[in-house]
């Protein structure tokens, strides 16, 4: 670890585990394990062969085929819509919860703090089952017009995503200097004005990070969507699930690649924002 740049050729020091051959081999093997399946999925979506194993030239025809599949496109639009809804609502609720838990002391606060972590630790299948039971027993209407027919999935996604947002926003709030808000109040600002001009600007990167996290969590989810989608609502994972059950086809590869691209774009945005904040000395 000491001056690794100067002594490139020197034998690895005792702490340079990363420079040992066997360590590099293990690292490489694990990263291949993590990435090869996804890389193959993306690569073979461009393969001009129905059989998914031999490369026969580049084509985008499976993307055209997927785009022409109306059900698949509808499912994709539905999933994106749910993800945007989840990001918006979960950010508001999560930020509100984080702010309350950070700002105030109240009786049984520890209970609330523990409860907020519940959706994170409860197994997904249990949450999915609970939502299924809940919506069918309270008689949540099944035949709502689009986009309200997605409301069950949207609500379920918000419920599991907003605690994550609360954690992100609360971590951000921890670095806020409370005397700023005090000063604003001393200078005559009302409670709302003081909050708007001191706390909320500080929270903003937390909002962004939280919203992107909620968006990604919503797109990433399969199990809860599977249990809350009604008989006539089609979302992307549920549609792909029914396709995957039958066979591995390049069309599914193409559709999956598009979803991976959307997630990657959201992640790149999140990382980019974080780096910018680093540079501006925010974090």
């Amino acid at each position, binding site marked *: *670890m000491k001056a*690794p740049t100067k002594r490139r050729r020197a034998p690895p020091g*005792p702490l340079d*585990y990363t420079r040992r051959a066997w360590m590099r081999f293990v*690292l490489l093997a*694990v990263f291949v*394990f*993590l*990435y090869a*399946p*996804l890389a*193959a*999925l993306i690569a*073979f979506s461009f393969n001009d062969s129905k*059989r*998914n*194993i031999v490369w026969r030239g580049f084509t985008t025809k499976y993307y055209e085929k997927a785009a022409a599949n109306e059900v698949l496109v509808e499912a994709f639009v539905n999933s994106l819509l749910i993800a945007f809804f989840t990001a918006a609502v979960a950010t508001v*609720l*999560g930020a*509100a919860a984080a*702010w309350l838990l950070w*700002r*105030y*002391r*109240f009786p049984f606060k520890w209970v609330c703090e523990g*409860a907020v972590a519940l959706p994170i*630790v*409860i197994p*997904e*299948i*249990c*949450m999915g*089952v*609970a939502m299924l*039971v*809940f919506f069918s027993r309270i008689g949540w209407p099944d035949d709502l017009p689009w986009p309200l027919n997605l409301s069950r999935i949207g*609500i379920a996604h918000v*419920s599991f995503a*907003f605690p994550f947002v609360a954690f992100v926003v609360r971590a951000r709030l921890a670095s806020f200097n*409370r*005397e700023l808000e*005090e000063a604003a*109040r001393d200078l005559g600002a009302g*409670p709302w004005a003081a*909050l708007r001009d001191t706390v909320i600007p500080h929270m903003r990167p937390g909002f962004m990070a939280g919203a992107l996290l909620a968006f*990604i969590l919503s*797109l*990433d*989810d*399969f*199990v809860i969507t599977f249990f809350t989608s009604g008989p006539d609502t089609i979302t992307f*994972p549920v549609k*792909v699930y029914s396709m*995957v059950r039958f066979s*591995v086809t390049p069309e599914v590869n193409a559709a*999956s690649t598009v979803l*991976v691209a959307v*997630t990657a774009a959201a*992640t790149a945005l999140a*990382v980019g924002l974080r780096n910018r904040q680093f540079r501006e000395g925010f974090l």
Partner: protein
Amino acid sequence: MTAGAGTGRRPERQRGRRRAGLLPGFAALGSGLWFLLFFLAPLAFVWVFSFGRQEGLIDIELAWTLDNYLRALDPLYLDILLRSIWLAGLTAAVSLALGLPVAVGIAFAPARWKPLLLLLVVLPFLTNLLIRTYALIAVLRTKGYVNAVLGWAAEWLGLPFEPLPLLYNDAAVVIGLVYVHMPFMILPLYAALERMDRSLVEAALDLGASRARAFWTVVVPAALPGVFAGTILVFVPALGSYLTPDLLGGADSQMIANVIERQFKRANDWPFGAALSLLLIYAAFGTLALRPALARRWRGPR
């Protein structure tokens, strides 16, 4: 609700008198109501139903019986329960074996590589679970990439080759679970190693320990809190996983979540499904509760 908790010089009481406005009320009402209505209420339904009895197709009689829980002890279900624990434990063990070298590699890598390496660990985790599982199917199936590569290799060597049955068995489930949960192991291990005092390793080496001995007596104990955290963080979601055994497992590698799904979707025995869900939740909580105790017991060298 109005007591400000600050660090300023002003006495607490005087600050507390300031009117907080309606905002905290709205914030509490919004987030609290949502949580109550769309999270706690659904769980309460499941809890109540777990004591019920299925009567006909949709009627559930609230009998306040423990029969559903006792039925989980039926050898058929107990077997699946134990296998779920076994598969999740195996997943945690394999993740640890693969994750520890990776975490050590990242923790001791040059500082400018670390963010990139960590991002590479997390990135696959952010893509849809179904897509990752589907990608694994394409790798492992009879005409998949692994068998194709092995087949070519066998042909080149002039050996006879039968495609290996890599899919639809317990091994495929464990591979799938490791694939999906790896970041949960690597990140806590990395966090523990990052906190380690590097001079301890140097001291061990100066005192004549071999590199392997320094690794086992200094680095591994320092990683222990991360080992516990990672093992628990992998074990808990793996125990409750539904999709991986469903798509990669065979008829006899079903896990507890698959049984739960069947009770709600096909077998239509909601009370029994609800009881199994609650047992799974209790198992998850019990496992998570082990962590602080374990962390207190083994602190690692300071």
